[in-house]
């Protein structure tokens, strides 16, 4: 399974991108390309999720959403707690980083789907709904953690009151719910759910058939971008952070497997997807909000972690790992 997983084109293209960076190749995507492909991928996955939603069991759907929100709130708190352990990472950076881990990476999620489809493994589609639901809670928790930390720092005199940005709750909360990727996902899901299947079918050549190919191109770019990000650790002793970027997805993925199997009754395929939602860290929706809402944190850290460490870890190791974990855990609880 381990080696098999690596023979999935999407993952190989990701590795190609990483290699390109390590041999210091001049391979570079034009500026707008990955932004454009991201919108396409979100649109495609949203439409797919919406179409499935029509056939969904309302009970399980509601439970999935419930657990998605729980994960979105709980994971960043766990992350924060680990980062703050023995004061390793200052509280503002810890708040900003952990928000990323409560949210999700659509790219990783789609790679997991590619893995399941290539391996002809069945999976539930409720995780697509869960993905939409997990973007916002983590953002809110991240902002709350930062606001609390700021209060503490002010009280202790470490931060001057004048310096301290008041959290502009209104605009930031709004942003948690209206940022581009949430909107495209939600909108496409709604469209996928209300449009009659015959009308939908004309979109499939674009949204389904060429999907895997486009994903490969995207992962090639993500490989380059992710590997580039690692440079950020050269400057400061990032050992603790790098360890976090590997341990946190393992914890998240494990929790995801348990939730999916024990509480939602998913198959191993569906459990992998929930695990990946939990294990992955956002690199599109959350960074802009944290930049604005927690300007004290260093964006290099959270971008390097989510793109340079956790993304590659999940794509190359996490996906087969969590799938095997799900099978093992299913055996355990059965």
């Amino acid at each position: 399974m381990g080696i098999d997983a690596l023979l999935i084109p999407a993952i190989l293209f990701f590795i190609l991108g990483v290699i390109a960076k390590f041999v210091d190749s001049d391979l570079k995507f034009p500026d707008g390309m990955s932004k454009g492909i991201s919108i396409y991928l979100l649109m495609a996955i949203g439409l797919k999720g919406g179409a499935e939603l029509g056939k969904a069991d309302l009970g399980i759907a509601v439970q999935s959403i419930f657990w998605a929100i729980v994960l979105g709130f709980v994971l960043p708190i766990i992350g924060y707690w680990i980062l703050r352990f023995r004061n390793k990472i200052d509280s503002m950076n810890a708040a900003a980083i952990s928000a990323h881990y409560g949210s999700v990476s659509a790219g990783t999620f789609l790679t997991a789907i590619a893995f399941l489809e290539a391996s002809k493994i069945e999976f539930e589609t409720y995780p697509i709904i869960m993905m939409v639901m997990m973007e916002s809670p983590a953002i809110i928790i991240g902002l709350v953690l930062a606001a609390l930390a700021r209060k503490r720092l002010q009280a202790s005199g470490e931060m001057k009151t004048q310096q301290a940005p008041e959290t502009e709750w209104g605009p930031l909360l709004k942003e948690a719910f209206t940022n581009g990727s949430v909107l495209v996902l939600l909108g496409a899901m709604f469209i996928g759910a209300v449009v009659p299947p015959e009308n939908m079918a004309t979109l499939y050549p674009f949204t389904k058939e060429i999907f895997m190919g486009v994903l490969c191109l995207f992962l090639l770019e993500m490989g380059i971008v992710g590997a580039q990000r690692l440079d950020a650790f050269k400057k400061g002793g990032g050992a603790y952070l790098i360890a976090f970027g590997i341990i946190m997805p393992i914890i998240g993925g494990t929790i995801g497997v348990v939730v999916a199997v024990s509480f939602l009754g998913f198959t191993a395929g569906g459990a992998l997807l929930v695990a990946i939602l939990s294990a992955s860290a956002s690199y599109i929706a959350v960074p802009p909000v944290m930049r604005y809402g927690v300007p004290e944190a260093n964006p290099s850290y959270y971008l390097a972690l989510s793109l340079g460490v956790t993304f590659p870890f999940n794509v190359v190791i996490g996906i087969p790992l969590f799938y095997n974990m799900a099978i093992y855990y299913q055996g355990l609880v059965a």
Partner: protein
Amino acid sequence: MSVKGCTAKQVQIIADSGLEPRIIKRLNKVGIANYTVFDARGEGDSGWHSGQMDGDSEVLILLLLEEGQMDSLKDVCKHYLSRGHHLTVFVSNVEMISLSCM
């Protein structure tokens, strides 16, 4: 309102692209309505903006201002700088070439 005189202050603001609409709204409120924006990438004390993704791009906002608008501008900058946002702002003097200044 465009620059009226034949000299102006050329103000350049480098900021995260997420700040662009916010800064422009705030400039508008203090009466600075005209601006030009360029996409950019770069590196500073707050790390590297690769320009490859939405949360990772920056912009340069160019403003031609009359001397009298500089205080308003500084207020806007102070608003962001005092909240910990990373703005790199610098100013120089330019001569305008327009029908009335030739």
